């Protein structure tokens, strides 16, 4: 309905000031606004929104190593790292259940203890090739540890898919913007699904280089600038496709576009045919070149001993280093066949404990060479109870040693396990991390009431790791909460 009012001279006066527009002016403005609302909202605004380029994480060298070892099965976790509280109350029963020789052989690594005669402890104390004993002791002095202890694991494959593997990118910024996964085949933590990563089945420098290289090598086919120009064009084509197919209005559509587009831009670095090899061949990494070819180290008495890198260890050393230097996100390793009960201590248990301890040695050496903070998460989905230890003859990096290896007796996933974490600080001030869960005199554990499940434990370990290396804890917390982790970070974190 239109209400007409007779115009007077006052209308003209007021109109000149613009306070009370005339009916005609009011309608004229309404007409303009109406047309603008209908036309511009349906074309220009939407087109402008669709034309926005994807928001790619800025590549940056942010120092800080993050890694995880997932020991799949049920190893004698009690014969690996031990907390101060466990060490203090260590008795013959507890030592036998864990598979270590006893309290007398426990030595400190920060606030942690290891049995110096066990395969695990002896390997950690021997250190990597190219280090003197004194140099390695200095590295170990910059380590601290903590963990969520509990009986929330299962054994014999049980619980293997409860999300015990996490991720670091993009919470941890890096140059390549993705994590490195080695032999990961079980389910990730819910919050880690979809995080960018590259996977290799076996850790060798060549395998790692391949996933960061082009096939065929760039040479006559492409180069960095043509690939960047191609990525620009693909992004522009993606924006046209967004408009044509309405992708931005569909759940996940923008994520698919951004992941592809950002990955394309990231591929430009691979146009250098030596890019991958230079990243993952320690001899080609200036900071690692000094130890890459080493074949000896010294023991505590100053005696030179054989100590050589395996191919796997060289790959891990380089991968951990690139994480520490900020080139890569995190490095996540899954070791299979760790269901220890009934296995031969000399032929199976000791070599596998040595393999995992050597991986930890490579991690610490990489942090040392990168001069970066580091956090390594170390857990299993099971635990084997032991019937003491027995003497075995093994080699650590080619060095022949006599060890006290665990006699894994039976499954004990419901008695003891620990989601452990190591912290490294090149300045020598690693955080004073805590252990949760109460240990009884048999070595069994009652979980902390605030850590109700392995899901909470894994989340807490990752938040602690990210906090230590200066990554984006807030972003990770938001992702975890979205995935259903209800506990507050202060409940979950270890410091």
């Amino acid at each position, binding site marked *: 309905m239109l209400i007409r009012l007779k115009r007077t001279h006052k209308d003209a006066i007021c109109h000149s000031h613009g306070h009370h527009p005339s009916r005609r002016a009011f309608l004229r403005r309404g*007409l303009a606004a109406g047309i603008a609302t209908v036309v511009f909202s349906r074309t220009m605004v939407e087109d402008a929104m669709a034309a926005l380029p994807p928001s790619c994480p800025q590549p940056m060298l942010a120092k800080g190593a993050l890694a995880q070892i997932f020991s799949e099965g049920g190893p004698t976790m009690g014969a690996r790292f031990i907390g101060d509280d466990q060490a203090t109350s260590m008795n013959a029963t507890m030592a036998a259940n864990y598979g270590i020789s006893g309290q007398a052989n426990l030595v400190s690594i920060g606030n942690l203890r290891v049995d110096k005669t066990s395969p695990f402890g002896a390997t950690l104390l021997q250190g990597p090739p190219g280090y003197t004993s004194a140099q390695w002791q200095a590295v170990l002095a910059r380590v601290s540890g903590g963990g969520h202890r509990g009986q929330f694991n299962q054994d014999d494959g049980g619980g293997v898919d409860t999300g015990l593997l996490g991720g670091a990118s993009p919470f941890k910024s890096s140059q390549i913007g993705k994590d490195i996964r080695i032999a990961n085949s079980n389910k990730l933590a819910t919050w880690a699904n979809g995080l960018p990563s590259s996977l290799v089945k076996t850790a060798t420098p060549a395998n790692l280089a391949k996933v960061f290289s082009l096939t065929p090598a760039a040479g006559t086919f492409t180069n960095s600038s043509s*690939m960047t120009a191609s990525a620009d064009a693909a992004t522009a084509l993606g924006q046209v496709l967004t408009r044509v197919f309405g992708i931005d209005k569909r759940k996940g559509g923008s994520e698919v576009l951004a992941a592809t587009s950002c990955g394309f831009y990231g591929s430009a670095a691979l146009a250098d045919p030596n890019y991958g090899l230079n990243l993952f061949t320690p001899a080609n990494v200036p900071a690692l070149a000094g130890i890459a070819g080493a074949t000896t180290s010294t023991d505590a008495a100053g005696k030179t001993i054989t100590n050589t890198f395996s191919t796997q260890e060289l790959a891990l050393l380089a991968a951990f280093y690139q994480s520490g230097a900020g080139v890569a996100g995190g490095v996540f390793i899954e070791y299979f066949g760790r269901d220890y009960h009934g296995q031969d201590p000399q032929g199976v248990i000791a070599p596998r404990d040595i393999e995992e301890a050597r991986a930890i040695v490579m991690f610490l050496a990489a942090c040392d060479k990168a001069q970066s903070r580091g956090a390594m998460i170390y857990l299993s989905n099971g635990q084997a109870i032991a019937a003491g230890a027995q003497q075995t003859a093994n080699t650590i990096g080619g060095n022949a040693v006599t060890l006290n290896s665990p006699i894994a007796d039976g499954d004990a996933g419901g008695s003891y396990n620990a989601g452990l974490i190591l912290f490294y600080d090149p300045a020598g001030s690693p955080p004073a991390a805590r252990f949760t869960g109460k240990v009884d005199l048999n070595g069994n554990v009652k979980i902390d009431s605030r850590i109700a499940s392995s899901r909470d434990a894994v989340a807490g370990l990752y938040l602690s790791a990210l906090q230590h290396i200066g990554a984006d804890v807030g972003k990770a917390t938001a992702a975890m909460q979205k995935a259903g982790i209800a506990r507050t970070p202060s409940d979950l974190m270890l410091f």
Partner: protein
Amino acid sequence: MKRTSPLLLAALVASLATIAACFPPATSDPSAGGLPPEPGTDLPGLGSASAPTADAVIGRIRNTLIGVDPLAGNFAKAIAQVKPNLPQMTNPVQATGLDQIPLLVYAACTDAKLASYNVPTTGTISANSAPLIAAGMKMLDAGLAGVASQGASSGDFQAALQALVSTLAADKATTQTMTTSFIAVCMASTTAPVSMVGY
């Protein structure tokens, strides 16, 4: 009696159109029967996009490019290396490995022959701008069932490819050849329909 001017009537119509635009159209549900909606009409229940899984990626690349074979050449070698890192699930929020698609596309593009797209192997990029863009449009059409050249956005697709070719022709830092230019066009024109359509 004072007459209502045409301007006022137009304003009234426009205002009513504005108000009407705020409400969903009564016939937008295709299941309600009747004529199909006009192109561009928002349909309820569009739902989620999908990420292409590894096999879908390989199949789409093969469909998009002339003469590439997932069982032979660089394409086959790259599949062996990259396939485990390609998306394993269609959930677009959880899928990982989309960043690997351009790497696989690159390998396939090195298997494609310039002659298959009437692109000369010699000459300057500027002089061969038209065949390069035509090659890109042909690849887009193969991956998009002809939408690139026949749809209303055809000019936009061509403009994106023209910008790419112009950039390559003007590259002072690196000497671009017809081969590098063809592969750049091929990578853009294949990666987009393989992984940026949402499906």
